């Protein structure tokens, strides 16, 4: 600690340079924290709610564009461990207009099975009952309620896009908790209105007794319909969500590549700053060596400067990352990737990782200047004055 003041004062010897270098670290750390948080969001559990690990999805083996027979439901529900299976259809209609800010999930489901499968969301029992008992009603997530100012009893009109019927629904319930950017309405509404598809569904959304059952149940479902006209792909809910992102390519690889490139760049920037700083202080470094500082101590001092500079940038970067992430989350909530927004947050582990990365940047960038400084010849360093 007694050397800290020396290190601190040397870090801010040239304030403009120190702050510009720190600024570059701050920018990079904001980016790293946001990217790591995004990676966590993409592969995380929070968006799935507390029961996410106990849920699975069954879709057509060839993709979501193909439908599944409704007759599968009974067979799926008979598999030991399955608590409920709800057929669901992604309606994909237009509310107000086609601008992205008016995008939200519109899903038909079985209102009786829905609360069993989604037991980790909050909904007033009276509202749930009202929704279950009224065929043209719907429930909406709190976030949508906040966005549109809907009140119970309000009617909304959604124009069909690829399902060519319009929805005319009345709001009977509001749910809170997991992914609040969807509305749910009765399958029966579609069955009665959508000629030709009354015996089909898009997916089955199901809940099993415990997370340990998921693998067994999904394998059993896959096997069960292997040789049927409509083979299925059953998977955990997390995997189902991820496939939407995989449609955009290997997002994780891209994110990791960007992170590595920016990290490497900032190491070079900080290394350059440290090299300049050390070069300007050859005489001073020779002086402290003459006073009795050993090579290792000089190395430690210069390296500490790089680490302190980098760590300060890291701390500031993390602090800036919080509001920036919140801003991004708000944006995501109104986009097709809304389900991931609920998991998109700066986790304590990410903060720790960011601090470790900061120390790593400092160590890597300060290493060469520190080695060079420690090897300065005292006589040569003092030559101008001794």
């Amino acid at each position, binding site marked *: 600690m007694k050397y800290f003041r020396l290190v601190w004062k040397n870090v801010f010897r040239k304030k403009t340079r120190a702050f510009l270098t720190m600024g570059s670290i701050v920018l990079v750390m904001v980016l790293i924290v946001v990217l790591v948080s995004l990676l966590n969001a993409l592969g995380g559990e929070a968006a799935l709610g507390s029961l996410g690990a106990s849920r699975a999805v069954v879709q057509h083996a060839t993709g979501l564009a193909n439908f599944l027979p409704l007759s599968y439901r009974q067979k799926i529900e008979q598999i030991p461990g399955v608590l409920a299976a709800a057929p669901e259809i992604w309606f994909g209609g237009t509310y107000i207009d086609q601008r992205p800010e008016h995008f939200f999930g519109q899903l038909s489901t079985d209102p009786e099975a829905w609360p069993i499968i989604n037991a980790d969301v909050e909904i007033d029992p009276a509202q749930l009952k009202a929704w279950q008992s009224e065929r043209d009603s719907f429930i909406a997530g709190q976030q949508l309620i906040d966005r549109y100012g809907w009140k119970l009893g309000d009617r909304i009109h959604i124009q069909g896009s690829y399902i060519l019927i319009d929805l005319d629904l009345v709001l009977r319930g509001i749910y809170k908790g997991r992914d609040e950017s969807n509305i749910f309405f009765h399958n029966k509404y579609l069955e009665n209105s959508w000629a030709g598809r009354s015996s089909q569904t898009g997916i089955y959304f199901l809940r099993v007794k415990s997370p340990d059952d998921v693998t067994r149940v999904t394998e059993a479902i896959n096997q069960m319909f292997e040789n049927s006209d409509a083979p299925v792909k059953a998977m955990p809910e997390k995997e189902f969500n991820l496939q939407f992102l995989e449609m955009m390519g290997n997002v994780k690889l891209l994110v990791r590549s960007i992170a590595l490139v920016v990290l490497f760049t900032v190491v070079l920037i900080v290394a350059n700053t440290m090299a300049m700083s050390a070069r300007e202080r050859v005489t001073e470094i020779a002086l402290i060596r003459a*006073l*009795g500082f050993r090579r290792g101590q000089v190395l430690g001092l210069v390296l500490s400067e790089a680490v302190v500079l980098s760590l300060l940038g890291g701390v500031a970067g993390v602090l800036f990352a919080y509001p920036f992430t919140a801003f991004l989350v708000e944006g995501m909530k109104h986009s097709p990737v809304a389900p991931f927004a609920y998991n998109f947050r700066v986790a304590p582990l990410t903060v720790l990782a960011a601090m470790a990365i900061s120390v790593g940047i400092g160590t890597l960038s300060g290493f060469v200047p520190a080695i060079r400084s420690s090897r300065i010849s005292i006589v040569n360093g003092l030559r101008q004055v001794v």
Partner: protein
Amino acid sequence: MNQAQIQIDRVSKVYHRDSIEIPVLRDITLTVNPGEYLALMGPSGSGKTTLLNLMAGIDKPTSGRILVGDQEVSSMGEGQLARWRADHVGFIFQLYNLIPVLTAFENVELPLLLTRLSRKERREHVETALSIVGLADRMEHYPRQLSGGQEQRVAIARAIVADPAILVADEPTGDLDAKSADEILELLKRLSGEFQKTIVMVTHDPKAAAVARRMVHLDKGVLSAAEPREMADVRGQRS
């Protein structure tokens, strides 16, 4: 070791530039007695600073031995030498070599960071050293806020703060006006007389050399004691 005898025994120093050998010191033998104030004089390039560096343990001879007290400085390893310098040598430079981002207090405190002294003890030592050089009221000033003479006094405080037996000074008045130079020379004289420091000072200035108790002359790396008349002359100039 409050006082130490410096013994330079047949010391030579040769620098190598590419394939060229440049002999700087040739077979120097010299003894500096404990508490002695020695002036090293000679023209530029005569090897004064090299000899001073060897005595201070920041350079090593090509041949010969340097003993300080009972320790052979010339055979010490890097780490051992660094520790020895911290314990036994105080440095005073022509351009003061204060660290600009540190206050006078922090500059003086630097050598004490290498000791096991507590923060309170370090503070006491620094205050004492700055009081000796008459700058107790300038502790929080940065070098840029001090005059040249004051900067050199801070440098002297830094040199004495760890109470070393030996002070090496290279042209300590070379960058000062006459009045400040006199103050610094007076201070060095006091450190030699009152505090019994062994002082070896390189100087071009006969007035500065006259303050020393003994003067030796180097020319082309060869040592010669100053002629008594030369000493008398420089003392005459001073008085």
